[in-house]
């Protein structure tokens, strides 16, 4: 190998890319001076400025795991229709903005020809916020991109039509850390057995005190195995959270059969109507079954079907459930309440029913 060339560039620690130069001219002109917006049709909205300007937005789903070829394709469309600008939503959709109403339909046609569905605005299923999975993560029990693809294949029509009571946000995550985040429906890996320890390698791969400190229930202790320093787990205490595996790869938490899926519902970030809320466990023990994850899809499908049929306009998932009660939610979604759905960790009593309020 040749010796590397002498480095001449001096790093500029600039942080985020400058906003300047990244905004459409109509955006720059009306920045902070918008009046209102309205939905025109699925995936298309218009914003009106106090100036009287109109700005049209077309939103399309993407695979999230993109390539330079796909991004260049999006750039071509942005150059053709949106004066050389685009933006992305935090749920991985691409948005093109422009001032000419006549560009809407040709752009939609070109996007759909590229295989990118137009939709995802307002009361429909938005694309799934998800994690990296087997493609890139160092601690994944599944491939979130694959789960997301399979679930969105099934919910494709719900992305492109406006038939849900309010917006539906989904997430998938490849471990209980849940980088995919809180959502109306979240599909999250649940480990069901304590880590399996590789005593032969542990002391060379792991900083022992760090792994001990990482455990939230003090279940990890130093030990000696075959004359080597190692760690042991008090399996009675262990809550199978997987925190130690992040610090110590010799404490393998993933398992092809025992790392399963759990489904959570009712997470909400917005303050609209009800306060933001974290989500609740409603289904578990679902196998991690690539490449189509049919069992996951069946549960998510039943939950969304029940919400679609029962929710009132503007009710998010958690608000619909608050109105009808959890008992009826389980009935409507054809799910079974199980003892592990009663919290037994810290703050558990905040979820106990400390009242006589019961529906029969």
């Amino acid at each position: 190998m040749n010796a590397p060339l002498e480095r001449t560039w001096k790093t500029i620690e600039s942080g985020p890319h400058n906003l300047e130069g990244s905004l459409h001219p109509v955006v720059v002109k009306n920045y902070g001076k918008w009046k209102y917006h309205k939905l025109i049709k699925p995936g298309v909205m218009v914003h009106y400025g106090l100036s009287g300007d109109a700005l049209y937005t077309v939103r399309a789903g993407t695979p999230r795991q993109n390539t330079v070829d796909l991004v260049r394709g999006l750039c071509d469309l942005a150059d053709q229709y949106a004066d050389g600008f685009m933006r992305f939503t935090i749920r991985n959709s691409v948005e093109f903005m422009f001032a000419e109403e006549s560009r809407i339909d040709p752009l939609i046609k070109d996007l759909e020809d590229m295989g990118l569905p137009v939709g995802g605005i307002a009361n429909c299923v938005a694309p799934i916020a998800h994690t990296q999975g087997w493609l890139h993560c160092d601690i994944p029990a599944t491939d979130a991109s694959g789960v997301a693809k399979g679930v969105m294949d099934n919910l494709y029509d719900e992305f492109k039509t406006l038939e849900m009571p309010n917006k539906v946000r989904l997430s998938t995550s490849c471990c209980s850390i849940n980088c995919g985040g809180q959502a109306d429906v979240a599909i999250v890996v649940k480990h069901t057995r304590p880590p399996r320890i590789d005593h032969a390698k542990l002391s060379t791969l792991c900083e022992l005190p760090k792994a001990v400190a990482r455990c939230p229930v003090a279940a990890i202790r130093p030990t000696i195995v075959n004359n080597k320093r190692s760690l042991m787990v008090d399996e009675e205490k262990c809550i199978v959270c997987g925190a130690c595996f992040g610090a110590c790869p010799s404490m393998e938490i993933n398992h092809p059969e025992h790392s399963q899926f759990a489904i959570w519902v009712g997470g909400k970030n917005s303050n609209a109507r009800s306060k933001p809320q974290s989500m609740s466990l409603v289904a578990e023990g679902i196998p991690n079954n690539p490449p189509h994850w049919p069992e996951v899809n069946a549960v998510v499908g039943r939950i969304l079907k029940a919400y679609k049929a029962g929710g009132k306009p503007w009710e998010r998932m958690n608000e619909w459930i608050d109105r009808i009660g959890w008992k009826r939610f389980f009935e409507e979604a054809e799910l079974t309440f199980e003892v592990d759905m009663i919290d037994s960790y810290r703050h558990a009593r905040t979820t106990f029913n400390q009242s006589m309020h019961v529906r029969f």
Partner: protein
Amino acid sequence: MEDLKGAGSSGDEKDTGDNKGKFLNPTPILDELEGGKWPSFITGFKELGERTEKPMIRGVLDQLEYSYKTKMGYWKGGLVTVKGYGAGIITRFSMIKDKFPEATEFHTFRIQPAPGLHYSTKMLREVCDIWEKYGSGFINMHGQSGNLQLIGIEQAKTQECFDELNQAGWDLGGAGATVRTAASCVGPARCEQACFDNLKVHEKVLKNYAGMTHRPEFNYKMKFKFSACPNDCANAIMRADVALIGTWRDSIQIEQEYVTEWIDDNGEDALFDQVVNMCPTKAISHKIGTSTIEIDNKNCVRCMHCLNVLPKALSPGKERGASLLMGGKNTLKVGVNLGAMMIPFMKLDTDEEVEEFIELMDEIIDWWDEAGLDHERVGETIERVGMKQFLDAVGIEANIDMVVRPRDNPYYKKQYDSAV
């Protein structure tokens, strides 16, 4: 797996068999993900692999196929970085490189986009060209923290690649125990509900903390998110240690003529069902037979619902600013924690006001750095040490908006003189 090209070989030869003329190896399980209507990442990866014939793409797809087959992941971390930085590149070495030598290294650049994920095609084309030259050509848009992620590069090429990206105006994001890349909603760029210029504040704050983004020196991560109104489209309350969320202090602005227009279009029943009865504090009233509404602004909690339903008729008040909430985080280790109200209203319009916010953050980060345990997020530290102690240490005054109600236990004490 033994018959795979690349497996156990140098990996450059194009091969034979029933996959003749193709650069990539067969990936029958992954190919299942090419069906269905939703855009397929596998199709994208395969097309890029066939066009560019990069061995890394072939090896990574082989390893991914193997993961799908065995239901296990095979990447391990490490410490790849660029000069002067200790974070920003996510290191990935294959744990099974003997099986898939072409997948030996697959590191990722996290780079920080402009706030609100706004791009010009010029910016993106530059990234694509640099990335295709040095890396795999896979681009994740975006990571859950808000990074533009360039997935797949070898260690030997990282410095040159970074230097070119840096010259084009890009910088690395955070990873590990650093200030992390931040996220913002679309903000005043395209939203009438924006109550402060979250994009400008995001840019200033994160540029200020660029050093702390690049060199891990904390107990754990520190995330900022900026949502311009309480709809919180950046998911700040749940996903950020420090959430700045826009709000207003005076009255909602009403244009009654557009309320009338809405009632004409949707009917009076819809006004009751979707607006009046959905107000969480019953602050909206409407007299049957009239075509207007009244809002009791003293009792409005700024939830945004009525503004979302009637965006043409209702707007946030004129005295706009932001609330500071702190402590949001997900599951690990104490469980989900939502950001808690610290400062209900701050102005963030001028450079001086943003500077003041940064000074407060400096205090908070210093306190957390001292008081926090290893791997403890600031919300966990505040809960463990005590809110009162936190407020005293960083100089935030207690206010009633911090609680949903005053405490229900009597276990506090006062200053006393032990000599008396």
